[in-house]
């Protein structure tokens, strides 16, 4: 479903070119559970943004469901995001002035779905994620776990094929984090491709496919080396955060 071939991305910082991704080849099928791990600055977030069509590769091609999405313009990409991709962020990114129900409804509103259908979908999602009694609460009245549940409900409201989660448990305590991860993993059973970015090897280890990134390259998958062996000091290198 997702096919990246020789995708590279470089940024200009000052007068220097910094490569965040170098020649990534990756393919992910529907229902895959993939974790991307690596030290900060290894390019895992950039890769996630690339898959989520929030960023464009400097070179290489990205095919989603067989179509080359790198060639699409902003409007078409927005449409693909709306229909096929869901995001879960570390800091939840809920709109503070909207209630939980309205936050969940937001993608449906943006997609222009009629109010009646929106309402039934939101009610169902609230129920699924145990938020029914929290429907009219604003984000600042919710706990961290509830906020992330709202965010997951929002991400799944358009029935996306791919769910991208960037450190979804980063702002949560361990118990809540586990609970949230469990909810995400349930989606895999519904044939959603879950891509999880984390620097926590315990969380990443739960994924069926584990990808390790260093310095903008995939160095191993599920423990096996796929490219060059990383330099011995790569894990310890501190690089600027190149999201």
């Amino acid at each position, binding site marked *: 479903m997702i096919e990246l071939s020789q995708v590279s991305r470089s940024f200009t910082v000052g007068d220097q070119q910094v490569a965040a991704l170098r020649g990534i080849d990756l393919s992910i099928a529907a229902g895959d559970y993939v974790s991307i791990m690596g030290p900060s600055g290894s390019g895992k977030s950039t890769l996630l943004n690339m898959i989520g069509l*929030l960023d464009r590769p400097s070179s290489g091609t990205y095919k989603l469901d067989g179509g080359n999405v790198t060639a699409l313009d902003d409007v078409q990409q927005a449409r693909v995001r709306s229909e096929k991709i869901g995001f879960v962020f570390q800091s939840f*990114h809920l709109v503070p002035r909207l209630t939980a129900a309205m936050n969940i409804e937001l993608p449906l509103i943006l997609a222009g779905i009629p109010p009646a259908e929106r309402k039934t979908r939101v009610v169902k999602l609230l129920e699924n994620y145990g938020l029914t009694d929290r429907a009219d609460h604003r984000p600042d009245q919710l706990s961290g776990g509830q906020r992330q549940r709202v965010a997951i409900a929002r991400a799944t409201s358009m029935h996306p094929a791919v769910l991208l989660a960037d450190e979804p448990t980063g702002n949560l305590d361990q118990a809540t984090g586990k609970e949230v991860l469990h909810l995400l993993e349930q989606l895999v059973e519904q044939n959603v491709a879950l891509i999880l970015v984390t620097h926590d090897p315990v969380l990443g280890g739960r994924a069926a496919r584990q990808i390790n990134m260093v310095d903008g390259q995939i160095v191993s998958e599920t423990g096996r080396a796929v490219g060059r062996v990383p330099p011995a000091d790569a894990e310890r290198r501190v690089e600027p955060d190149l999201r």
Partner: protein
Amino acid sequence: MRLIDVAQFAACSLRGSPTRTLLMMLAMSIGVASVVVLTALGEGARRYVVDQFSSLGTNLVIVLPGRTETAGIGPGMLIGQVPREISLDDVQALLRSPGVKRIAPLTVGSATLSRDALNREVVVLGSTSELLEVRHMELGLGKFLPPGDIHESASVCVLGNQIKREFFGNEQAVGAWVRLGDRRFRVIGVLASQGESMGMRTDELVIVPIASAHQLFNTSGVFRILIEAKSRDGIEQVMHDAEEIMFQRHNGEKDVTVITQDAVIATFDRILTALTMAVGGIAAISLAVAGVLIMNVMLIAVAQRVKEIGLLKALGAPPVQIRRLFFAEAALLSGIGSMAGLLLGYAGSTIIGQIYPALPVSPPWWAVLAACATALGTGILFSVWPARRAARLDPVAALAGR
């Protein structure tokens, strides 16, 4: 995204920062209100003047002795000539014009009115029976001047309402005798109270037949001739005839001026409409200022909501939609602001109308429309840039709050 959802979302974000929204709407509504109030005042003044002129009569053509020259002092004045006066025969000659419906010559002077021990100086108007209709006066009691020979100097008079009250109080005035200058006149009628019109208080007038007035003041000239044309279309004809007749009677000299009341009204109308528009235009500047304020507020909103914009992009909102959301916000701001301004403006003009009841204060429809259009227009125009800025944000950077 549905239009109603766009509006709801925008309304929701406006409610998110109520103080800013209220201040913004206040600025907008003050702008609209000032346009409404100022144009209402200007329009009131215009209508006041036009009404005053119209109350003088309809389809009026006015003949004045002398030629009004715009070139300053005419050669005649230097050698002590005064314009040839218009005689009563001239007035009768004007009746030859087929377009004339009524004709009322006027002579004005002042004389001492006395009854028993009471006396005061009054303005005396010499005219004919037709003055009543030509000038749209209303008779309160008795009869007006009798019709008949213009040269007949009957000793009768009609009193203005206030003169009657001063001299007779609640007594019967009609039929009584008063002294005007050195002549005795019988009161045959009293005018109804009709207030002031064009600076001449008809309530303080005494009207006598024109021949009597000539004797009283020892003159033979007519001050003005008021001619009522049969129809509006007939005014041109009457003007032309009047000039022609006077030209022939005065030995081929054009020594009268013929003006129409319409021309006078039209001039005032133009001047005062221009004034109203100028005042309205000045007030509209405050709307432009409000527009700049809206831009400022929208730029702040974009800066404060960078993360939200990033989120909207991630959720699949194309740039067009994000622009539309900000446009909707600006449109709502200026829309509600101008509604409030309209209310404020109408309330203000009503209050002014209460304070100056003589002034028919009401904002003209074009000013109301223009004020709202300008408010909405500037609001949306000045949000173009902030909206574009929001739509162009890089989603990755925006999500990170950069």
